[in-house]
């Protein structure tokens, strides 16, 4: 079990986060680039000393600046799968996996035999003599995983384990990785900027933005109540902050008022709107929609058979429409359109 309180100051980044990863649990640190995710991982691995806080693994203090305790990386019972894997280019797949066993004092023949067993477990027996450069992305990742697990660590750290793969192999490797992760009984911590990786692989999410935890919980909890605009975008939901200005009206920071269907939960609220709930019109709409406004098209992004329309104006949201609607409404950058959303499609919660 990992209990970490990580404080690191690195340039403009002030990292301060609390983490707990139980045995058998997969926790994903999810956040935008530059949020400090990799720095947190490096601190846990001992590749970066803490400036404050404490890292405890299975009751052993690994890093505690207050008591000048620092266990060097080589003596920590950890395994790390690095971004782009960092397989040693001049060693075969087998020697890569045997490297850690040799470093732990196993004799050569024994280390090689053990490494071979690991490769076979990951369906890589046929590639034992292959140099890393000749392996596919998915194979290289399995070698990296075998290498990290061969020393039987108590904590497995994975840094963007799928970022080096192209979209086509990613799907398959993600599924394999999930299966392989399940065979390891220690604590597992993975860092990713991809919400899909996090949702598929992790039991629990820790969202980190600008060095701080903004939300933590199971994937379902996070998706249901995104606590920040970043999280909302990750899970595909628009999130607007506002203040109650009436029993059923919320005033946004832009001054625009939205009418909601239910009584507000508190004075400061967040309003969640699904992109599909926003309708776009050429002329001012009538009908039942309680909220209408003029928006400016900032950008268009095709996503299979839908187009996501980034709207500027009093209600900065993303709307999702069909390509036919884009053509009919002549949507293009800087075009003005009317937008509407029904009160029943707004979900509010206290913040």
């Amino acid at each position, binding site marked *: 079990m990992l209990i970490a309180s990580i404080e690191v100051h690195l340039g403009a980044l002030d990292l301060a986060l609390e983490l707990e990863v139980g045995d058998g649990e997969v926790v994903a640190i999810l956040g935008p680039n530059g949020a400090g995710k990799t720095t947190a991982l490096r601190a846990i691995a001992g590749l970066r000393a803490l400036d404050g806080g404490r890292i405890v693994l299975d009751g052993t203090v690994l890093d505690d600046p207050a008591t000048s305790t620092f266990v060097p990386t*080589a003596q920590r019972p950890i395994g790390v799968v*690095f971004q782009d894997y*960092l397989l040693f280019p001049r060693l075969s797949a087998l020697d890569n996996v045997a*490297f850690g066993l040799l*470093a732990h004092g196993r004799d050569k023949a024994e280390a090689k035999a053990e490494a071979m067993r690991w490769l076979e477990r990951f369906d890589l027996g046929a590639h034992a003599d292959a140099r890393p450069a000749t392996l596919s992305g998915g194979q290289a990742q399995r070698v990296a995983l075998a290498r*990290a697990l061969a020393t039987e660590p108590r904590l497995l750290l994975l840094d963007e384990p799928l970022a080096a793969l192209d979209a086509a192999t990613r799907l398959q490797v993600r599924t394999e990785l999930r299966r392989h992760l399940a065979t390891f009984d220690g604590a597992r911590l993975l860092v990713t900027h991809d919400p899909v990786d996090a949702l598929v692989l992790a039991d629990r999410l820790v969202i980190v933005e600008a060095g701080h935890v903004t939300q933590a919980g199971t994937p379902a909890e996070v998706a249901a109540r995104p606590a920040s605009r970043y999280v909302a975008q990750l899970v595909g939901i628009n999130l607007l902050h506002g203040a109650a200005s009436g029993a059923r009206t919320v005033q946004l920071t832009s001054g625009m008022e939205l009418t909601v269907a239910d009584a507000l939960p508190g004075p400061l609220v967040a309003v969640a709107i699904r992109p599909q709930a926003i309708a776009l019109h050429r002329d001012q709409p009538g009908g039942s929609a309680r909220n209408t406004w003029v928006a400016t098209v900032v950008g268009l992004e095709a996503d299979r058979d839908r187009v996501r329309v980034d709207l500027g104006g009093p209600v900065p949201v993303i709307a999702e429409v069909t390509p036919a609607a884009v053509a009919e409404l002549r949507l293009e950058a800087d075009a003005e359109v009317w937008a509407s959303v029904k009160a029943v499609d707004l979900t509010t919660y206290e913040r």
Partner: protein
Amino acid sequence: MTQARTPWVIVPLAAIAIAYIALPFAALLQRTPWSDLGRLVSQPVVADALWLSITTAFAATGIAAVVGIPLAWVLARTRFPGRSAVRALITLPMVLPPVVGGAALLFAFGRRGLLGGPVFDSTGFVLPFSIWGVIAANTFVAMPFLVLTVESGLRAADARYEDAAATLGASRWTIFRRITIPNAAPSIIAGGVLCWARALGEFGATVTFAGNLQGRTQTMPLAVFLALESDRDAAIALSLVLIAVSLAVLVPLRDRWLAG
């Protein structure tokens, strides 16, 4: 390679540079007494000088590698006050007239030198005017080439492989031996080649510190210089041998390690 729009003034200037390097070699070949070459290069003075030059160049490169690679590592991977001063000091033999280096070596390791004096008093060992003096002079002048090349190679190498090795439980020494050195191998070879070539051609520091004794301290460059005074044909023959040896060693290494 990109097709540049070549400013017209560039081409003749580049041609001058090529001609300036090529012409002396052409002149040397033109003056070569080809019919007499066999006799000239089989003189014992040539064999003595050639053997001495090659062995001392290799010895100097070996010593430079043993202490120079660790120095390159320290310069590339650690931060300490005065690091840039150390790098400037290491660069000094590259920019210093080699004769001045030879004189400085005498004051340090000569029979009455700073360190040489006490060593001579207690053991009777004298460094200058011996093959050891030649090696010492070569090392002094040539080591900076190896150190600076390897340092830049270490800087360019991806240090994250060392992180990966550490997470697998490797000690610092294991990481240095099994990851750092192999990853920096191209720069070590390149630096070694530069160092060896510089040592092979070393003249000023050698003649000052080790003298010019045939069979003991007379290297090829010294033999060429001496022969120029007395026997011009012998000087040309010696020069050709030196060029041939340099090419024989450098060309295969260049193709293997420095290509691309």
